């Protein structure tokens, strides 16, 4: 063995020439390592595979011509982007590669941006400068942002786009949830545009809670809000019996009676369930309130609280006072002040009071509260931050109760505590934290929500969008939120509209709900007598609609006040109400309009003019349209409906003036009656 080695040594380094030759060879070999590494690199392998795949396609020459070998790079200094992803993802811009299933060769799906302008990592995260798959896609010790899972991709849209976008339903939903589900009551979020995110929900004040409900109900609610109403917004704080006992004791002791609420029952609640159900239906309570039916389905809207078990919750005298005028107890409530008669109040309160669940309070037995319990309850109310959401007399709303979330989307992974078994990435952390907040350690206060997996995904998406980049964007890239309107009508009519809570359903000048039509141009649109009649007794315009305007029992004075205001103030500058007459159109014009209606434009697909033959019920019924709308409005509507009401489903048909006039003549002649008699001068 030793001899062999010696002879090998002799052969290689025996004399200086040999040694020089061998050392040179070794030296050259080591020099070759660097180019060889480059030659065998991953990206070169993928580029070869791409060329091989392309070779057999019919569009081979085009694809080959577009191909550039070597490391490719998108460099965008103002975004801090150096993306070499296109070195392997060779076919991103090739529209013909949609049928390719193997990555990295598929074309990029259609998006509104160009790859050259935004690069890849702005949306997908990951390490752009890397030239190996694992370094680019996974988190490494030097780079902790791995590729963003596809389900959160809309968060990257939200870095620049601060308002809702039509193409990002998940991001929009997430932002709505953050505002609506109470997240921002505790967590401060300073938005990139300098404002602070506002909550859109309105948790009730607890200063007079003893007027409304019993301590037993508060106890059961605190223990499990979803046991009372599955749709309850309030999350579960996982309180033990003693905590719930003491908090309920404090809230009751702290509550002060409100004038008008503690009035004795002036009307005996009626026990006629049929009359109650019919009044509940006529008043369209279900437009806002949901009730769980026998099959377990929620029937009704989500503006107001669920009423399935409301009889177990509210005290009869409070309910009657509330039905008489909800604004006495809660001046900012979304509920309308119906002008119910005393007998209606009795009927409706009896009907609602019968909606009970005997199991809910069956096991709640509370002794009279001791001063210690009340004091302890007060401490707990401060500890759990109840006053972040609810107004509680004597307790100040805590500042910065929970960690600020303004830049949560850039939080370093090293600062996070992960649960065993979960992936060590920021999106997984956020999603798990929302799903089971108390699992992350003892003594944590964040309550348990009942979000669906889809809601958790959208919340995570919205949170990931608030990151360092969203706060440091070049101003040219930031897309601002459309400014929010806080429009309030003035004067007596304005007060009346607030009292009736018109804005809970109707949108006016950009402010209000989306359940009912936009009334911004109502004064240009309708005829005064129709509006007066409608406010007195709202009928329905759309046969298929389940949410309708309720009857408020308005007095004649109130109706006149509202009508005058609407007719005067809500006018569109481009529609002159009196520019076209309501009558006096020639028979020929009306006939031409009729032909257009049933022929060229086939309006009967969506509207009904003749109740015998027309069936369409997407748009409003037009049998009486001649006594409802102004001719000028109909004409402008025919010309361009979206200009008058953005987003309306009525298509813009680009009619000629003559056609629009003829259709106006035909429609304005529909004043009721089966065949739509033609009104003549």
């Amino acid at each position, binding site marked *: 063995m030793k001899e062999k080695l010696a002879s090998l040594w002799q052969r290689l380094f025996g004399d200086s020439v040999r040694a020089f030759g061998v050392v040179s060879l070794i030296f050259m070999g080591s020099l070759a390592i660097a180019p060889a590494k480059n030659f065998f690199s991953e990206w070169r392998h993928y580029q070869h595979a791409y060329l091989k795949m392309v070779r057999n396609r019919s569009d081979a020459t085009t694809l080959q011509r577009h191909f550039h070998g070597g490391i490719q790079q998108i460099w965008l200094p103002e975004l801090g982007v150096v993306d070499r992803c296109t070195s392997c993802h060779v076919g991103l811009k090739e529209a013909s590669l*949609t*049928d*390719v*299933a193997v*990555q990295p060769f*598929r074309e990029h*799906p*259609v*998006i*509104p941006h160009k790859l050259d302008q935004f690069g890849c990592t702005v949306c997908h995260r990951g390490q752009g400068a890397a030239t190996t798959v694992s370094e680019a896609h996974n988190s490494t*010790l*030097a780079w902790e942002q791995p590729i963003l*899972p*596809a*389900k*959160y*991709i809309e968060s990257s849209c939200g870095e620049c786009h601060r308002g809702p976008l*039509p*193409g990002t*339903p*998940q991001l929009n939903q997430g932002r709505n949830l953050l505002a609506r589900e109470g997240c921002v009551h505790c967590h401060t979020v300073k938005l990139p545009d300098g404002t602070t995110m506002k909550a859109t929900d309105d948790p009730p004040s607890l200063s007079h809670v003893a007027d409304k409900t019993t301590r037993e109900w508060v106890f059961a609610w605190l223990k499990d809000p979803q046991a009372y109403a599955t749709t309850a917004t309030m999350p579960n704080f996982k309180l033990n019996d003693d905590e719930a006992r003491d908090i309920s004791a404090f809230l009751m002791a702290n509550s002060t009676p409100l004038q008008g609420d503690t009035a004795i029952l002036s009307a005996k609640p009626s026990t006629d369930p049929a009359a109650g159900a019919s009044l509940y239906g006529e008043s369209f309570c279900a437009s806002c309130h949901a009730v769980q039916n026998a099959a377990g389905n929620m*029937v009704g809207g989500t503006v107001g609280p669920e009423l399935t078990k409301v009889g177990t919750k509210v005290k009869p005298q409070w309910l009657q006072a509330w039905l008489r005028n909800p604004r006495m107890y809660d001046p900012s409530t979304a509920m309308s002040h119906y002008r119910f008669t005393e007998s209606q109040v009795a009927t409706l309160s009896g009907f609602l009071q019968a909606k009970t669940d005997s199991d809910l309070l069956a096991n709640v037995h509370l002794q009279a509260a001791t001063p210690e319990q009340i004091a302890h309850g007060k401490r707990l109310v401060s500890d759990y931050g109840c006053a972040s959401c609810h107004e509680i007399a004597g307790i100040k709303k805590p500042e910065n109760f929970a960690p600020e979330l303004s830049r949560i989307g850039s939080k370093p992974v*090293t600062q996070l505590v992960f649960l065993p078994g979960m992936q060590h990435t920021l999106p997984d952390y956020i999603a798990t934290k929302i799903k089971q907040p108390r699992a992350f350690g003892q003594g944590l206060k964040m309550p348990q929500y009942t979000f669906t*997996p*889809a809601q958790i*995904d959208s919340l995570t998406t919205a949170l990931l969008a608030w990151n360092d980049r969203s706060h440091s964007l070049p101003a040219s890239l930031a897309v601002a939120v459309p400014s929010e309107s806080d429009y309030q009508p003035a004067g007596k009519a304005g007060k009346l509209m607030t009292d009736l809570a018109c804005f809970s359903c109707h949108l006016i000048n950009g402010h209000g709900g989306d359940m009912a039509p936009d009334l911004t141009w109502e004064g240009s649109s309708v005829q005064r007598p129709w509006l007066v009649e409608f406010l007195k007794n709202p009928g329905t315009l759309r046969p*298929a609609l*389940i949410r309708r305007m309720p009857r408020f029992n308005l007095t004649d004075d109130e109706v006149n006040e509202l009508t005058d205001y609407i007719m005067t103030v809500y006018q569109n500058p481009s529609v002159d109400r009196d520019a076209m007459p309501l009558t006096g159109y020639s028979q020929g014009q009306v006939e031409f309009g009729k032909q257009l209606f049933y*022929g*060229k*434009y*086939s309006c009967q*697909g*969506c509207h009904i003019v003749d109740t015998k033959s027309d*069936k*369409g*019920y*997407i748009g409003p019924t037009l049998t009486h349209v001649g006594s409802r709308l102004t001719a000028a409005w109909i004409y402008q509507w025919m010309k361009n409906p*979206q200009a008058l009401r953005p*987003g309306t*489903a009525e*298509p*813009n*048909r*680009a009619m000629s003036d003559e056609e629009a006039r003829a259709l106006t003549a035909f429609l304005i002649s529909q004043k009721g009656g089966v065949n739509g008699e033609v009104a003549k001068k």
Partner: protein
Amino acid sequence: MIRFGCTHVGIAARGCRAERFRDGKCAVMLSRPMRSGFGVLALLTTVFVSACSHQSANSTALKPTASGAAIVESSGGKQSAQTGSPLPQPIVVQVNDEQGTAVPGALVEFSAAPGVTFDPASALTDSSGQVTTSVSLGGTAGRYRIVASTSIKSHQKVELKIEEIALGYQQTLGRRLNDQYCERCHNPESTVERVSNYDNLEIKPHPFTEGDTLNRISDADLAAIISHGGTALNKSALMPAWGNTLSKSDVQALISYIRAVSDPPSSGAGPIYAKD
């Protein structure tokens, strides 16, 4: 010994993390004896961890108490959702025996292309012979083939193939436009919130899932019908012209949505993502 190793690896790794921004490579920061020990300890940890995961995989495996002869879909097929998002409804499959009666306690396993997740990925059938699983689709738009399988008595497997549709950005835009402008007439199904106008129309529109008809219409013709109305191609005037209401890219988005949901799939629908 193993526990000792784990703690040391932990400390070493933490040490790296703290220094990594300064130096990039963590091995440099470790002293020589630690480096030699590091490899051994890492190896031991890997062995330990893999042994653990192997064990836990075994302990959570479900033991079927029965086996059926066939597996059928109860509901949940042919749904669409955005890429990466959960399908609106879960997939429900049922295991039956030779007579067609439901079999409780049979093991059903779900599998699909990488990126598709199931909750749960395998389960025993309940008392009515059914298994329900929530599905999130993968990150690329297109069709996904999901396979639900169960063992039959002879220890062979029977498979059920279910297709679901993942919508990309353009199709999601199209779906929104469909909801706003098209669906009331083109979808015959009514819901509580949205009553269909389909039955009121003398000439019935084509539901967008009607692949047999719609696949034969070219993109250009579809765009013409949407933009210029039914009369543009000698079809019913009940289909209005949307060209002044929708932009060109809106129309493209709608077409991509129609192509995505058509059944049978359109020729341009792209590949189907399946397990291998």
